[in-house]
């Protein structure tokens, strides 16, 4: 008995020992930041680079600021009023200055900003860009809380907030107006939430490093493809920019994964209230799951017929892809015309949406289709797969009389064939195989691809030349590319197909506009089939061209866009106008040239007469008109109008109508200092942007290279040993 007891005690001891060992190993393996093995130093000459960035700021920048978004979107008919609230919470022990780069819809008219802390609300005011920055910097140096909202590109903005106390929250609310359109029978609201890293061409960077500035003379700007003097975000690698702003001394994190930001950070709550103004087949989204219901009240919109209240459910939504919400008119209720009018400060403003006459859009000419596909690094992952699918679909849609070619580009551009080939079965088959072998990698040198696509002159008499551009538009030299399209398009037309979950819609829409084509965005794989067939059907000649708005003699109306684009079947005609004085009736005629069912062309016109709304409801049509005017003035610069002339006009328009533009910003200053003037140290933090959903992160990130098999083997072996001891304890 005695020896049995002895053995059993020994067993207990042994078991405890094993258990203890197991605990030690387990605990060790849980400890994540491992010490570097000093023995390795001898083989690593450059180990000083290791972890350098990580220790630059005390907390590591990604966790420094907590970001929460709240988005309220009210849609009345085709007009959008949106409130975007960005809540910044300082997670560090230091006073903080936060900078956040964020996207907004590219036709957003940003007209108001206010800062809220606790009960205090400070309203922002519009100032010239440089003056606004000066106001902000001055307030900052005086220990005052201030906020600044700047436009970096038409769809990329920044918010700066100074003096956020440790553990404190500051809310910046931004208001914008936007107009929607009924296109291809669908009304779509798009709210972008993150920015795909943009690419800056090498030639621009070269220039930048030589002169130390991005400011160039007008001629230089055109020659070097550089257009803007915006704050340039830092490079991730070789021309790729993150959404960070390292040039301003801000330690900018690259685009990060949701796991890299503070827990529950970078999420937003979205509420939408939609009064479509016509019978709809419900409200849909291909990007998010929608919740909500129909409310039969006119409280929110002031219009009868009720509205839909829509949200994204109980949980907050990650800010890593565009939110797209759509609705379509029910059968028989498709509106042909929508008119909005408003009298503001002695002027009458109007916004007109028209669906042009539908007709069989048959072209007798055979087509020469040039597919240009973006294979740059930002397309990596799902975007590349979708782009290839689009190409397959488009290739299958070719008819035997057509000619075609495929051009791919990243850091360089190359073509499937030296010259466009007839679309024979064998050629198309070879092109399909070519498409399958494409992979995403390198920069986005788009200009070369455009040259290749546009300059291959062929007889446009017998072939209708069309270019289909498949890309995510992640470039930062938009204006220069527009110039190139404008100058070398000739008889061709350019269609853009947008890919990715956070595309640069501004580039896509404008490129198609300058290219006299249309823009199709693919938000979901399921759309490829239908949207590409729709686009291919449009690829005939435009339905309506040379469109003009004619006013009765004596009325001096300002219509924007100043040049109305050609329309393809399904495209809406949208324009805004301003008529001096408070007129009661508007009487105008829209006219153009219409493709007449393959029989040539015919003049077309449509008179519009309507009385002006005088109910005093503020729709903000004056601001939307001013936004259209600014967009037109920017386009005029691309078309060759001197930049300073355009800028001056933009400045006066933006200041008069209180809009954020590339020359004006909103700034808010709380005149009661939050800190002592002599106690002004601030940690600058750059709030990270999330990597767009579906985009491969291996352009930016190292792969995960641990299988975990060692851990499993070790834990398994120890567990078995321990269990074995326990099991046989009494049997010994």
């Amino acid at each position, binding site marked *: 008995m005695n020896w049995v007891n002895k053995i059993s005690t020994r067993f207990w001891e042994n078991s405890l020992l094993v258990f203890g060992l197991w605990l030690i190993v387990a605990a060790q393996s849980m400890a994540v930041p491992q010490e570097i093995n000093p023995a390795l130093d001898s*083989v690593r000459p450059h180990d000083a680079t290791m972890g350098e960035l990580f220790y630059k700021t005390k907390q590591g920048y990604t966790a420094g600021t907590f970001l929460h978004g709240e988005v309220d979107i009210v849609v009345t008919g085709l007009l959008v009023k949106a409130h975007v609230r960005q809540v910044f919470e300082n997670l560090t022990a230091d006073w903080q200055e936060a900078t956040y780069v964020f996207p907004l819809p590219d036709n957003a008219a940003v007209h108001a900003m206010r800062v809220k802390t606790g009960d205090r609300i400070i309203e922002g005011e519009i100032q010239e860009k440089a003056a606004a920055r000066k106001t902000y910097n001055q307030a900052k140096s005086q220990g005052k809380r201030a906020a600044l909202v700047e436009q970096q590109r038409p769809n990329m903005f920044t918010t700066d907030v100074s003096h956020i106390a440790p553990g404190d929250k500051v809310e910046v609310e931004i208001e914008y107006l936007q107009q929607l359109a009924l296109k291809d029978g669908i009304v779509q609201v798009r709210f972008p939430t993150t920015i795909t890293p943009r690419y800056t061409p090498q030639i621009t960077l070269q220039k930048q490093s030589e002169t130390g500035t991005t400011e160039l003379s007008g001629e230089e700007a055109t020659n070097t493809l550089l257009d803007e003097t915006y704050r340039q975000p830092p490079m991730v690698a070789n021309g790729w920019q993150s959404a960070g702003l390292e040039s301003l001394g801000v330690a900018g994190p690259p685009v990060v994964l949701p796991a890299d930001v503070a827990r529950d950070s970078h999420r937003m709550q979205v509420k939408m209230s939609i009064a479509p103004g016509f019978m709809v087949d419900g409200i849909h989204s291909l990007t998010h799951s929608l919740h909500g219901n129909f409310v039969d009240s006119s409280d929110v919109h002031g219009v009868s017929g009720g509205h839909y209240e829509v949200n994204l459910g109980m949980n907050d939504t990650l800010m890593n892809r565009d939110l797209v919400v759509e609705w379509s008119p029910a059968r028989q209720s498709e509106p042909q015309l929508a008119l909005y009018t408003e009298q503001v400060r002695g002027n009458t403003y109007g916004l007109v949406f028209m669906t042009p006459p539908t007709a069989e859009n048959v072209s007798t000419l055979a087509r020469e289709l040039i597919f240009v596909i973006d294979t740059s690094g930002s397309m990596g992952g799902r975007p590349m797969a979708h782009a290839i699918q689009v190409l397959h679909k488009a290739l299958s849609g070719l008819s035997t009389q057509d000619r075609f070619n495929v051009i791919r580009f990243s850091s360089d551009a190359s073509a499937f064939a030296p010259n466009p080939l007839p679309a024979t079965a064998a050629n198309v088959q070879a092109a399909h195989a070519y498409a399958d072998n494409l992979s995403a990698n390198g920069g986005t040198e788009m200009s070369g691809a455009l040259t290749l696509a546009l300059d291959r002159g062929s007889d446009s008499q017998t072939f209708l030349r069309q270019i289909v551009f498949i890309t995510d538009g992640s470039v930062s030299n938009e204006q220069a590319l527009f110039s190139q399209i404008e100058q070398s398009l000739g008889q061709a037309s350019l269609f853009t197909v947008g890919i990715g979950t956070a595309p640069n819609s501004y580039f896509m829409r404008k490129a198609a506009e300058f290219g006299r084509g249309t823009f199709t965005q693919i938000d979901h794989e399921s759309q490829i089939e239908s949207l590409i067939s729709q686009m291919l059907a449009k690829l005939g000649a435009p339905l309506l061209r040379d469109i003009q708005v004619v006013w009765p003699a004596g009325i001096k109306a300002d219509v924007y866009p100043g040049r109305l684009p050609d329309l393809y079947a399904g495209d809406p005609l949208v324009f805004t106008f301003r008529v001096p004085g408070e007129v009661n009736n508007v009487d105008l005629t829209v006219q153009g040239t219409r493709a007449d069912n393959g029989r040539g062309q015919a003049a077309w016109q449509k008179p519009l007469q309507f009385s002006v709304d005088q109910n005093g409801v503020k729709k903000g049509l004056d601001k939307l008109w001013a936004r259209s005017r600014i967009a037109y003035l920017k386009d005029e610069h691309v078309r060759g109008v001197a930049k300073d002339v355009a800028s001056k006009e933009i400045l006066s328009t933006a200041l008069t109508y209180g809009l954020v533009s590339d020359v004006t910003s909103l700034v808010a200053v709380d005149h009661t200092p939050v800190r002592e003037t002599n106690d002004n140290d601030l940690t600058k933090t750059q709030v990270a942007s999330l990597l767009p959903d579906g985009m491969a992160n291996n352009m*930016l990130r190292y*792969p995960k290279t641990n*299988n975990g*098999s060692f851990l499993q083997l070790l834990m398994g*072996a120890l567990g078995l040993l321990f269990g074995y001891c326990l*099991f046989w304890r*009494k049997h010994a």
Partner: protein
Amino acid sequence: MRRKSKNRKSKKTMRWLAMGIMTLAALSFSNGLYIQAKAEVAQWLLQDAWVRTLAGEAQAKPWSWADIWPVASLHYRKQPTSTELFSEELFSDDHDLLVLNEASGQGLAFGPGRLASNIQPGEPGWLIIGGHRDTHFGFLERVTQGDTIALQSTDSRWHLYEVDHIQVVDSTNEMLPAPDEISEPGLILVTCYPFDVVSNGSLRYVVMAKKVQPHDNGRVITL
């Protein structure tokens, strides 16, 4: 009497507990083994696909439902120094690996993978290959500056790269170099770091090599 039944009861609980622990442990162990076995077997199956690739088949798949295929063959042999010329290590540190077309989590279980780039061995630019530390790329621990790594491209040609730089980076903060950052052919091998810790971490071990011409400056290069 009472004491005995209590004993029996506790003994029974203990046995159930023990069996539970052993079952869990066995599952964990076998999963670990499975990962290791999968890594070995996949490489073996890939050999056949590689032979077909060299014979001209495009995207030769190792098994019919695979979505991976070999794009290069990687060869590394520790160059013997005079002292260890006859040591056992010389024979064990000989690695032949097939590199896959992609470096996704799934693909990496079967072999090291090429990262989002279509750069072929011998072409200008960084050819970046990632691999698991606990299976295929464990040998990187013993790679030192000056070592030669050989890559065979799909056109059967061999390309020699000489290791010129080894570093550890924090993957949460540092980016991979862009493939077109250099104009000469370069090779980057990436795996997890440290090698001898069982858990996951954000550190990566990066081996950088530049293409060299086959030479015979005292060293024997056998392929």
